[in-house]
């Protein structure tokens, strides 16, 4: 099992922008502890959902060859809470993409209304950290992540 916090991509423009849906459900166990009397989607998991939406966008831009690691939460602001039954959309666009890193800027929509703004940076770790060695295989992008985006890439060269 993998820690996946988006349900489906609804837009994917390679190397430019993407949007993914997350339906918040009371069937999610963590909501019963956060909080028992008043379940609220944790902001940290919305940041994770945005990081996955953006991380897949950044990874696909280099054909999933780089190990893309969340390196910095530059900004994360939320105006309101999210509760079971709400639908979130993480919209994100790439601001910068270089050999060693990427920066992105995104919005969090709740039932169509913007309720948050998140800016992130990703590191292509094999290009950084002064030659530190990481495992050969790409442990970031495994089947489940790639399957999420596959419908948008059909018909393109692999």
């Amino acid at each position, binding site marked *: 099992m993998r820690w996946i916090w988006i349900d489906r991509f609804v837009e994917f423009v390679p190397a430019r922008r993407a949007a993914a849906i997350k339906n918040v459900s009371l069937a999610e166990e963590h909501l019963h502890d956060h909080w028992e009397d008043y379940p609220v989607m944790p902001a940290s998991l919305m940041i994770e959902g945005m990081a996955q939406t953006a991380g897949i966008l950044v990874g696909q831009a280099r054909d999933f060859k780089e190990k893309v690691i969340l390196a910095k939460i*530059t900004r994360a602001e939320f105006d309101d809470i999210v509760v079971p039954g709400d639908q979130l959309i993480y919209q994100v666009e790439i601001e910068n993409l*270089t050999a060693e*890193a990427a*920066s992105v800027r995104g919005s969090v929509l709740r039932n169509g209304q913007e309720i948050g703004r998140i800016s992130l*940076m990703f*590191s292509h770790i094999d290009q950084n*950290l002064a*030659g530190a060695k990481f495992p050969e295989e790409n442990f970031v992008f495994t089947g489940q992540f790639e399957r999420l985006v596959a419908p948008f890439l059909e018909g393109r060269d692999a």
Partner: protein
Amino acid sequence: MPITEAEVFEKVKETLVEALGVDDDEITPEATLTGDLGAESIDFLDIVFRLEKAFDIKIPRGELFPDNIVNNPEFVQDGKLSEKGLSQLKERMPHADVSEFEQDPDINKMAELFKVQTIVNYVVNKVNHS
């Protein structure tokens, strides 16, 4: 019309406030990026991205913040920059004031060369001579 150093400083200040989440009164010309402003390695890339946008310039990797001097055994001796390392540093970082550092070129103190003024000098030169 050439951009003045004061104008560059103001924009660099805005850039650092956004990239590092510090207050604008913490940004003085002598403030060091890592020591005083708490920058980490990924922040240096963030700063480069933001400067490129703010000043509409292209900053090649390693030009503003040279990253392969201390990793080169040719330039380091007993934890200090050698003569060769120092001259390499001066050649690569004409925008940094190395006068204090060269008295005791301990590589652990190299981060102190990265001051707000170092960025300002780099940008002034880049914008007005490109």
